């Protein structure tokens, strides 16, 4: 088991390194494909009508004059071991994990991201609790009462749920419950440490909006999984040996129907922690996703690298946790 975990961790680290390399390459190659030179790239980050000297200085400071692999190496080195930037006579030390300074605002990137993480975590975790409970419950009930009015109604609703774009449901809920009938007026993020009640109250709409989409998805998945499991032979065996139906459903049916759901849940949560871009934009929540959109519209490379690396990190870690849990939960899965 330990050897398995170690192997998986090493594979995850390699995957992360590859992802950062590709990200780096893409964001350096794409502007060049569009026909920009490194001087033109540097020109974006200097004021209007820069002198050639100023341009050259910026180009050097930002490292645009170095070969691509060297720039990537310094980036990776900064994350693991910190980095020192020299601007003329001044030197500034950027501590671990160093994602550098924003090209535009010249502020360090990492503190900016960590200050936004609680928003995204609050949003994703709260929604996850709602969607796992409702999605799985509805899916199981639908499967057990297949063809009933409840089944038809909830599956119809679920189909609608997966067909509605989240930014539309977000705007709709804002228009209805924040503006028309102001149940949740003036939505803005309040840190949980400052006022837990207001924190929760202002997140109710985003939570429900996000959870609606995922509940629909999970209800459909759970129902399909449950239907398949309940037609297995071992369920008949369990019934035949006289177990109460309740135990058959929970111990034998649900347990094996839920294992694939755990995988998907890990991936979805990992994906959302890296920034719930659409939801955050629609609700104007100052989370990592909004930061990412900002970084991208500003074409601010250190910020872009930081958010993509962080997002990839969450996905890879979620994958890792799921794989390890899988082995722990499902005795049939053997690790190699």
């Amino acid at each position, binding site marked *: 088991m330990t050897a398995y975990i170690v192997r998986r961790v090493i594979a995850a680290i390699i995957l992360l390194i590859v992802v950062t390399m590709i990200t780096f390459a893409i964001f350096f190659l794409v502007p060049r494909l569009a026909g920009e030179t490194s001087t033109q790239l540097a020109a974006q980050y200097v004021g209007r009508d820069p002198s050639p000297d100023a341009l050259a200085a910026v180009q050097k400071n930002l490292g645009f004059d170095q070969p691509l692999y060297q720039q990537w190496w310094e980036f990776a080195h900064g994350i693991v071991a910190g980095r020192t930037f020299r601007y003329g006579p001044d030197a500034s030390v950027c501590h671990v994990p160093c994602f550098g300074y924003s090209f535009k605002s010249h502020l360090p990137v990492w503190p900016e991201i960590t200050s936004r993480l609680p928003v995204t975590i609050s949003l994703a975790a709260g929604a996850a609790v709602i969607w796992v409970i409702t999605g799985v419950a509805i899916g199981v009930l639908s499967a057990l009462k297949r063809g009933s009015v409840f089944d038809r109604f909830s599956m119809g609703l679920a189909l609608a749920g997966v067909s509605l774009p989240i930014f539309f449901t977000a705007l709709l809920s804002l228009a209805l419950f924040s503006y028309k009938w102001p149940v949740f007026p003036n939505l803005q993020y309040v840190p949980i440490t400052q006022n837990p009640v207001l924190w929760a109250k202002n997140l109710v709409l985003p939570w429900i909006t996000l959870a609606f989409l995922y509940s629909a998805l999970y209800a459909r998945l759970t129902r399909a999984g449950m239907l398949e499991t309940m037609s297995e032979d071992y369920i008949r065996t369990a019934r035949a040996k006289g177990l109460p139906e309740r135990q058959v459903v929970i111990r034998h049916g649900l347990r094996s129907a839920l294992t694939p759901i755990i995988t998907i849940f890990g991936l979805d949560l990992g994906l959302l922690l890296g920034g719930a871009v659409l939801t955050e934009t629609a609700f104007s929540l100052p989370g990592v996703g909004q930061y990412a959109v900002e970084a991208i519209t500003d074409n601010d490379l250190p910020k872009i690298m930081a958010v993509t690396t962080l997002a990839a990190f969450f*996905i890879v870690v979620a994958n890792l946790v799921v794989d390890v849990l899988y082995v722990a939960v499902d005795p049939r899965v053997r690790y190699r």
Partner: protein
Amino acid sequence: MTSPLDVTGSAAEAQPESVLAGVGEKTIEGRSLGQIAWMRFKRDRVAMAGGVVVVGLVLLAVLAKPVEAVFGLDPNAFHQELIDPVLLKPKGSFGGVSWAHPLGVEPQYGRDLLARIIEGSWVSLAVAFGATLLAVTIGTVLGVMAGYYGGWVDTVISRLMDIFLAFPLLLFAIALSASLQGGAFGLHGLTLHISVLIFVIGFFAWPYMGRIIRGQTLSLREREFVDAARSMGARGPYVLFKELLPNLVAPIIVYSTLLIPTNILFEAGLSFLGVGIQPPQASWGGMLNQSISLYQADPWFMVVPGLAIFITVLAFNLLGDGLRDALDPRSN
């Protein structure tokens, strides 16, 4: 994920007695897989409805320009006279619905919403179909190769899919489409935006297709008919194209149909974030983006593009679910 669409009860079960009973009276004709699937599909009314809507939408999208010309709809004509100059919202109720403007007009500028929805339909479907075609092509080719050849080919392709799935896709798509906005590969304007979206979405959606096709190929490869073909001297390409590919057509059709709505949502999402289709070209996501700042003045404005996306995506989902139930015998 099958019911409530799939056929249940006696209709779904084979009835050998009735088949036997018919022997004396008329000759039994063999039915092809396609005929059987079509028979099942016809019985599924919900899926049929979805299919009809999809056909209508595709026709509308293909004929968007002629339709606009015939009905005198101009998606970019400003009607400032229809806008309340203080509140910026359209005069009249429901966003200024009238005979001339059946879906109302846009707040602030007064452009006709019906015209913009029609205009948005072809952009949306062009991107979704293009991206799906790209994803399905890459996914099928690589998936079949990984499943059929196995060994190091499988390892390389599977790891590649893992890497793609570990990428924060939406961020990448946003970043790529944002940084290519100015002009690239000698393309400009709308052509560029549509090509970039097709490329970005298709390029990130293929691993899902690839995994499904790889799995199907793996199980098909071990089947007797493949062994039979090989034992009669068939070689790689023949087995691939004549034995495996025909059996993969059903999953390819089903998952392509289910990939289209995902890609429609993806395109709308990117345009909503302002990195997809750029104004003045009308797009459904772009209209929702405008409505972020305008929904308080005119809530009707966001309902129109929102419902357009919803109906389109729902219709494709219904069609896809129905096709899966019809083509996959296991689903009953």
